[in-house]
């Protein structure tokens, strides 16, 4: 239990509307929701997901699902379609324009609403208030979860630190390509202890008294939560299961997001190997005898972002910049090693992206062999296994500090 009493006292200034207080004190106060003595009755833990072009009709390799949110403790609910499933992030973020419910916001004791700036590696970001909602998926329900409402107004000007990555404010369907992002990655919170630090909190959360936004230190329980670990059961991770697809791509790909790992008959590890990650969610990938130690698996990345054209000896595309366009499909094998020493090869193909995007009259949204430039040879210290990695595999995402099968404890990947 990381949220100890002294923290609660120190952060007594934070208050929530009544429904939120109940839910969050439950989250912070119990040591683990998986320690109950009587096993819960199995619930439907399978959420339908699909790869398609998404609501902006232009997303390549985007994995989408529907998420139901409710005003905490009520049956006043709304189902938001076309939410991107992102294993490289934590927490639910929804375009405020897609939410018709009035949700209670997280405030300090001066009624200043907690705001968040969440940035991505490409410099783009989302900005907006933190609110509380019950989250329902399949038969699972997480109560009073802090989520982000991505702001489409300028109630508070976006802090300069939020825009210093150089990218776009993804606050519309056109910009985000989705109605929201469902972060179901390796961690309980989106930020963790770095944002709870009182001396040097990371610049994610803000309070904006008098419309001047300043970085706020926020205890774990008030940060955006991975909803999965807040389920009463099936809360130690997820299994993303997508079928294999043809090498020329597929128009849509139906699949499953299954909650829990080894908690029901449908989410056993089976033959999957467990690769534990470092404290940041990364592991080592070795290609051509060079180790890339910050490698990761990310359903929210839409390609295999793998080194650069010079290192791989294949050309970049001319029609579609940043993608690879080999004359014929090339196979690569990379060896992944977890922190626990588990090691195994991963093989994948990279095909000509110009040709892929033209196949089936341009109607394919899913490709298992789409590769992109991520950096120059030995200076790039990662391989980003995006959605192509997931086709034809069962990929398990183990959440930090949550016990899994065979003694596995998150953060880990298993496949």
């Amino acid at each position, binding site marked *: 239990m990381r949220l100890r009493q002294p923290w609660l006292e120190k952060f007594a200034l934070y208050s929530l509307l009544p429904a939120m207080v109940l839910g969050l004190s439950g989250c912070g106060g119990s040591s683990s929701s998986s320690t109950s003595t009587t096993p819960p009755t199995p619930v439907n833990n399978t959420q339908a997901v699909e790869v398609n072009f998404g609501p902006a009709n232009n997303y390549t390799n985007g994995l989408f699902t529907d998420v139901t949110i409710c005003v905490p403790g009520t049956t006043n609910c709304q189902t938001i379609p076309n939410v991107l499933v992102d294993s490289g992030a934590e927490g639910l973020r929804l375009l405020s324009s897609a939410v018709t419910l009035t949700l209670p916001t997280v405030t300090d004791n001066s009624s200043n609403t907690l705001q968040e700036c969440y940035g991505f590696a490409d410099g783009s970001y989302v900005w907006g208030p933190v609110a509380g909602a019950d989250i329902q998926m399949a038969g699972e329900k997480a109560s009073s979860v802090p989520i982000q409402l991505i702001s489409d107004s300028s109630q508070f000007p976006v802090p300069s630190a939020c825009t210093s990555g150089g990218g776009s404010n993804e606050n519309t369907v056109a910009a985000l390509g989705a109605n929201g992002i469902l972060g179901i990655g390796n961690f309980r919170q989106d930020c963790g202890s770095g944002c709870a630090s009182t001396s040097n909190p990371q610049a994610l959360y803000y309070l904006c008294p008098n419309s001047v936004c300043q970085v706020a230190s926020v205890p774990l329980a008030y940060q955006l939560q991975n909803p999965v670990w807040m389920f009463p059961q099936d809360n130690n991770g997820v299994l993303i299961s997508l079928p294999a697809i043809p090498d020329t791509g597929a128009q849509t790909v139906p699949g499953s997001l299954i909650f829990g790992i080894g908690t029901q008959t449908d989410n056993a590890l089976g033959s999957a190997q467990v690769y534990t990650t470092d404290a940041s969610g990364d592991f080592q990938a070795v290609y051509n005898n060079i180790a890339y130690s910050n490698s990761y698996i990310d359903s929210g990345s839409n390609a295999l972002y793998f080194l650069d054209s010079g290192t791989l000896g294949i050309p970049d595309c001319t029609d579609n910049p*940043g993608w690879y366009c080999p004359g014929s499909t090339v196979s690569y094998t990379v060896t992944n090693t977890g922190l626990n020493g588990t090691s195994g090869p991963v093989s994948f193909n990279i095909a000509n992206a110009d040709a892929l995007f033209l196949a089936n009259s341009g109607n394919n949204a899913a490709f298992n062999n789409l590769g992109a430039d991520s950096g120059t040879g030995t200076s790039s210290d990662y391989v980003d296994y995006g959605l192509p990695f997931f086709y034809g595999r069962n990929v398990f995402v183990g959440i930090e500090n949550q016990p899994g099968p065979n003694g596995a404890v998150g953060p880990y990947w298993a496949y």
Partner: protein
Amino acid sequence: MKTFLAAFVILLLGSTPAWAVLGEYENSVTTDQQHLHAQLRETARQGYSVKQLSSADGRTVTEYVSPDGLVFGLSWQGPTLPDLRQLLGSYFGQLQQAAQSRRQHHGPLVVRTKNFVLESGGHMRSFHGRAYAPGLLPAGLSAEVIR
């Protein structure tokens, strides 16, 4: 009050390094108050020097400086992205242009132009990347040193 005190103590103990800007001379930049919490480590290499700044929130920025003091490259790692507007200076506009005009990609960002290269990857809790000005590399030096 506690927050204020803690920051004050670190300020007194830490050095007050200037954060240099890509393409500018390291002595031409003013000290950035926001980054006073950083600790500085300098290393001389064959034909250039390396200036590494580690800030208290876990971010590291490494600057690569030519013998005459010009910042020709930089790299970063940390739980959040660094302030690229400040670090890239006049090159920031090229990053903005590339990042905001990019289509179809959802993942790491790579910018390659004749006078500016940027590679930015990772995810929350673990970002890493580098940027450099190819035309400013000291003669005979490979961009591979920037990592």
